[in-house]
């Protein structure tokens, strides 16, 4: 039984279509990596999954009581955030806006934020200012916020962009641990090698489209071209 299923999905802006005939499904507990060149429509797919865009054609269906409001989202950093005066705790707490419509946060919200900060190893930083943290620490903050919004599905948009190799490894391990705890992961990545290493399913979008398990991807023509390209570098 899939959790999310896309049927004959077409993506784009206004009436301009970027990707057509997209079929894929995600089951609970899976780790799906979405790879492809810049401009191939990866980010648009993500926005459609989250309900920020509506599809040009086809549909995305959610099962087992999941709605697109229950998906935790790790967006790319925005310009606004670069000099934003806010503490780590304030930002993580704001993830709770997903869980209820009340205007003020309860004790329960604070405890959830606290435990997610501990899980991400940033509890010691909770009174620090977000803009003074390193890139890796900032990503952990946003991940903790996303965890407050959901316990089921996390959608990550290039979670390691701009991070140095060591911090990148730590970030991938962190995400893998969340997956082992049972959280379904859907991640956009430039880094095909990491996708092959960590994910169990791959969705390749571009001139041709591939969807299947990691092993099938390595044998496919999309996979063999793309992977050898990045191994050569």
């Amino acid at each position: 039984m899939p959790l999310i299923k896309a049927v004959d999905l077409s993506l784009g802006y206004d009436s301009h279509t970027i990707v057509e005939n997209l079929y894929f499904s995600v089951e609970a507990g899976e780790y799906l990596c979405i790879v492809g060149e810049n401009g191939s429509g990866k980010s648009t797919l993500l926005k459609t999954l989250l309900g920020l865009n509506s599809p040009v054609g086809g549909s995305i269906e959610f099962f087992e009581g999941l709605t697109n409001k229950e998906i935790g989202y790790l967006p790319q950093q925005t310009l606004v955030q670069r000099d934003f005066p806010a503490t780590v705790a304030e930002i993580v707490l704001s993830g709770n806006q997903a869980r209820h419509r009340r205007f003020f946060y309860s004790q329960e919200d604070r405890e959830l934020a606290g435990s997610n900060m501990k899980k991400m190893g940033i509890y010691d930083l909770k009174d620090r200012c977000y803009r003074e943290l390193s890139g890796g620490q900032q990503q952990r903050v946003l991940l903790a916020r996303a965890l407050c919004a959901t316990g089921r599905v996390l959608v990550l948009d290039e979670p390691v962009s701009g991070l140095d190799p060591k911090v990148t490894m730590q970030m991938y391990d962190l995400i893998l641990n969340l997956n082992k705890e049972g959280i379904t992961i859907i991640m956009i990545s430039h880094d095909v090698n990491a996708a092959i290493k960590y994910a169990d399913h791959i969705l390749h979008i571009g001139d041709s489209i591939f969807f299947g398990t990691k092993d099938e991807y390595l044998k496919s023509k999309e996979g063999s071209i793309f992977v050898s390209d990045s191994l050569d570098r």
Partner: protein
Amino acid sequence: MLDKIFLYMQYPFVRYALIVGVLIALCSSLLGVTLVLKRFSFIGDGLSHVAFGAMAIATVLNLSNNMLIIMPVTIICAVLLLRTGQNTKIKGDAAIAMISVAALAFGYLIMNVFSTSANVSGDVCSTLFGSTSILTLSKVEVYLCIILSVAVVFIFVLFYNRIFAVTFDENFSRAVGTNADGYNLLVAVVIAIIIVLAMNLVGSLLISALVIFPALSAMRIFKSFKSVTVFSAVFSVTCALLGMMISILMGTPVGSTIVAVDVAAFAICALVGAVAK
């Protein structure tokens, strides 16, 4: 010096001016943090010019209460300007510049062509720089200002957590089901109300100062959203009070004195922030 202040405090119009000044300073600083962080600092400026244009029309029509025209026109423009921020043919900053100069030009034109007043340039100057209007408030205007200010503070406190979330990351908020557009609309309406109120205090050319200086000063020193918000409110109220006192004692124009105090206080905050680092 204290004697002089006490003497002036006996006049009701001075007391009104102080009450209204403090309330406007408080309201404008609250929303200022959000506007500065969202890169909307200039919206205050654009809207105040729109309010000037609307006031010119109201003056020519000889309405007993200017607010009936100024308030709706400014609110509509605020909503339109925030919409253009998204995806239209004319980009946000150009739209603001366009609307604000057009309103300014038409306002002055209308006042010149149709005005019945003997002193047009005096009227214009007082609307632009608010030279005396704060001291000539009627009782109705003072009550209106108090009611609207209380409403603004109430809305801000109630929606504080949501305003923070939407300001920090609009896409995330939208993805988890928060009505980000609704909150943007709310901010636009509230900022329009504040600007119309603030025209009485500092005039339409200087309103931006009340919106941006408290927020920018607080951001030099403080690091959490809550402390920045609280400090900018305190900063704004203190500077407004100080500016009004100085202007009463020295006989300087109210609006520009307040802004001058704001600038000086910003310099101090910037220095403190630099030293603390």
